[in-house]
């Protein structure tokens, strides 16, 4: 089956999730990846949305973080303060899925402004849950489209901590969780170097060249000693993803996620 770069990205992100994960899900790309994982290899994956819905099993992707679908298919729904106090801050979440407008080589994320904070070139939505998701979940996976405006040498604003501006700030700030361990794009997957925490390419998606990755990254991107090809999406993965997107489009009259 032929597939798009966006489908490859969602499938690659979904594969990182397991049946034992308790995953804090953001809207858009993360939501599509998390629900694809649940519909394919990880049916017992636990999904938590910041609207308070615990163990939710939506049949279509929500457009917003608080769609009724999330509540109707949840084991239970708690208040938003309880969600952030007991469930996120309390350390119950194994994986947080994040994206943003900008990411740097250490997985720090900007979702606040491009340009100066007081007189921004572009005013973005802001943190939402991201700032505390980034430090409270055991691990962070990042999923973002790869282009030089998003993969930048220097963030305009650090909304959410990755490994910090030099890659070593987490411990100094008293943060004991692992931080970003996986970055999935529409070109490749990356993992942080064990010594420096700098993200390096570990797999290229089929047909993607290292030159393409370099052109689309705003810093001199490093490649791991051994680069594998990301396994192409299987027919089962593609069918599940397309069915999910079709159901979603019918339900909303628009396409949510990818």
């Amino acid at each position, binding site marked *: 089956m032929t597939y798009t770069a966006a489908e490859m990205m969602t499938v690659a992100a979904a594969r990182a999730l397991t049946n034992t994960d308790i995953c804090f899900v953001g*809207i*858009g790309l993360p939501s599509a990846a998390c629900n694809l994982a649940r519909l394919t290899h990880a049916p017992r994956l636990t999904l938590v949305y*910041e*609207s*308070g*819905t615990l163990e939710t099993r939506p049949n279509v992707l*929500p*457009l*917003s*973080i*608080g*769609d*009724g679908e*999330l*509540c109707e298919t949840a084991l239970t*729904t708690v*208040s*938003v*303060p309880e*969600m*952030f*106090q007991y469930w*996120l*801050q309390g350390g119950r979440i194994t994986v947080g899925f994040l994206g943003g407008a900008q990411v740097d080589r250490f997985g*720090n994320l900007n979702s*606040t402004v491009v340009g100066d*904070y*007081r*007189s*921004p070139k*572009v*005013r*973005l*939505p*802001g*943190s*939402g*849950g*991201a*700032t*505390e998701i*980034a*430090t*409270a979940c055991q691990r962070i996976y990042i999923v973002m489209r790869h282009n030089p405006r998003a993969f930048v040498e220097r963030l305009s*604003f*650090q*909304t*959410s*901590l990755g490994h*910090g501006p030099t890659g070593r*700030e*987490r411990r100094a*700030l*008293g*943060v004991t969780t692992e931080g970003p361990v996986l970055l999935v794009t529409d070109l490749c997957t990356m993992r942080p170097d064990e010594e420096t925490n700098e993200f390096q390419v570990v797999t290229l998606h089929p047909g993607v060249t290292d030159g393409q990755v370099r052109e689309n990254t705003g810093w001199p991107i490093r490649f791991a000693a051994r680069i594998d090809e990301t396994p192409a999406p299987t027919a089962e993965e593609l069918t599940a993803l397309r069915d999910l997107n079709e159901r979603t489009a019918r339900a*909303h*009259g*628009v396409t*949510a996620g990818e």
Partner: protein
Amino acid sequence: MADLLTLPEAVSSYVRSGHSVALEGFTHLIPFAAGHEIIRQGLTDLTLIRMTPDLIYDQMIGCGCAKKLVFSWGGNPGVGSLHRLREAVEKGWPRPLEIEEHSHSAMAHAYAAGAAGMPCAVFRGYRGSDLAKVNPRISSITCPFTGETLSAVPSLRPDISIVHAQKADRAGNVLVAGIVGVQKEAVLAAKRAIVTVEEIVDDLGTTGSNATVLPSWTVTAVVLAPGGARPSYAHGYYARDNAFYTAWDGISRDRDRFRQWIDANVMRVPSAAGRSGA
């Protein structure tokens, strides 16, 4: 005890220009009818507080109601930007807007602290985030028992909170169901609270359950406003109008189109949702 009022009565009695106002509801039960009544009554200089400003504050900001916004995520969920909010921040139109920006965790903790009568909220947050550098109301405190440095933000204590709920009984007790968000905390944190509801019933049917109920003595006014959360949704009554949220992107991009929409859909609409429930 809550009074049963019409929407115009409730807003004119309890909301004043210059007030700090929280219209809460986390995607669900957003009190649009009440926000539109505030626009119609021409209230200005409001400090608007909401975790997710959503379309309702985009509309109020675009109409010049606000001098300040306290928020933690200012987008159109699943769609993109809030263009009226962006134009106020980026270009000062229709008037400059001061912003106090937080994370969701901070605002959720701040509402809970307000409900608890505490001066501030203490939590583990903002670590490694530049938000603490640009918002002077984000501070820290040392745990006297462990020495751990924790974040502190002032509690939220709005002059008035307004929420929408499914039902109230004739005594003014209110039931909130589904995604309950921060409605309970916002009401208990505020000096006064208005609750708009889908229907008024003889019996909430909650005896013996752990449903989220706001006793009438925590609410200043109850207003019957069926459909008052549209285009957001009311669990058990109507679904979220996702197509309108998508259409808002086009309506709100252009100042003239926005003003025409407000004129046709807010200013020229009588306060139909405000008929008395008594």
